[in-house]
């Protein structure tokens, strides 16, 4: 009985969604694009970044990004709460084979460098703080899994991660606060000497542009890599015992 009602509800929702898909504008031809045209035409001039997506993320809608970084921070805190009690005994997990460890040794520094490259060039090429932070965090995940977590605790400590996460977030919100003499999230560096060049039109890309955007990218990158690193460490150290 209950299941039938559930199925009916599901069918109704599905039909609604399906109808909405049929009523959408044809694929690839948006009806209105006033707001986006403003971003595309004025974006370079307003924010100094070549990558319009980044300029939307960190300038026009920077406040959303603050919220997004906060969501990640909240989730990390939540995971820490959920695993705040250690249950049972911790079982030492075996390290991976020698081949895996060697490959990891070679790979992880490259991945980390690549991640930081993505973070630094976020205002010029695809990428940015979130993507680069995730790439660096995946290098940490590789390290944690191929060596046992308990073994590398010396370097990858939860406390260190937690401190760097908070400092990344703090730097982000502080950068937003620095513009407050005009408005919160005002891009006060654009047009100045530091990261201040304003590009125009199609160009090969110049690192010295983007105003506060590169700095925000770094701050967010630090926050994301340590936040996700923390999640992985927590899940790794507490998520494994209690079997059998």
């Amino acid at each position, binding site marked *: 009985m209950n299941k039938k009602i559930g199925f009916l509800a599901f069918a109704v929702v599905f039909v609604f969604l399906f109808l909405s898909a049929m009523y959408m504008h044809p694929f690839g*031809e948006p009806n209105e694009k006033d707001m*986006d045209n403003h971003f595309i035409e004025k974006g370079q001039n307003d924010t100094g970044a070549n990558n319009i*997506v980044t300029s939307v*993320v960190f300038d026009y809608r920077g406040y*959303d*990004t603050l919220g*997004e970084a906060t969501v*990640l921070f909240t989730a990390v805190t939540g995971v820490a709460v959920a695993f705040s009690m250690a249950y049972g005994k911790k079982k030492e997990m075996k390290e991976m084979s020698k081949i895996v460890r060697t490959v990891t040794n070679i790979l992880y520094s490259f991945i980390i460098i690549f991640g930081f490259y993505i973070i630094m060039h976020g205002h010029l090429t695809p990428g940015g703080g979130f993507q680069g932070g995730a790439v660096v965090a995946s290098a940490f995940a590789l390290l944690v899994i191929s060596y046992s977590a308990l073994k590398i605790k010396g370097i990858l400590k939860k406390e260190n991660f937690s401190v760097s996460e908070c400092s990344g977030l703090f730097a982000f919100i502080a950068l937003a606060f620095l513009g407050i003499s005009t408005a919160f999230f005002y891009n006060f560096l654009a047009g100045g000497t530091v990261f201040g060049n304003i590009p125009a039109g*199609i160009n090969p890309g110049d690192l010295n542009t983007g105003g506060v955007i590169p700095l925000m990218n770094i701050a967010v990158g630090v926050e994301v890599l340590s936040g996700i690193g923390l*999640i992985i460490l927590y899940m790794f150290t507490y998520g494994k015992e209690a079997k059998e």
Partner: protein
Amino acid sequence: MIQHFPFIAVVILIGLGIYACMFKRNLIKIVIGVSLIESGVNLFLITLGYVKGGVAPIYTNAPGTNMVLPTPQALTLTSIVIGLATTALMLSFAVLIYKHYSSIDAKTRRLKG
């Protein structure tokens, strides 16, 4: 029909996700359902922003200036990170539930939804 196909794919993804959330009892399967809904919504946002013949909205060495809309991409970035956060938290709750009950089947207890 064919020009609506990306939207229909979105709806099918979301539908599969909702189905998993409503009728699966395994907690991890439920989380997978949530992930599917989220992927569907992300795909929806990106398809909304696509302009026929447009290029990525990045001026560095761009091949042209007819660009796809940048806002949906920014929104999707936000939504992907939020998705990671919610998935991680829900999975850790699932692990916590398993520690207490040695089961992640929703039906064994009053948990259902």
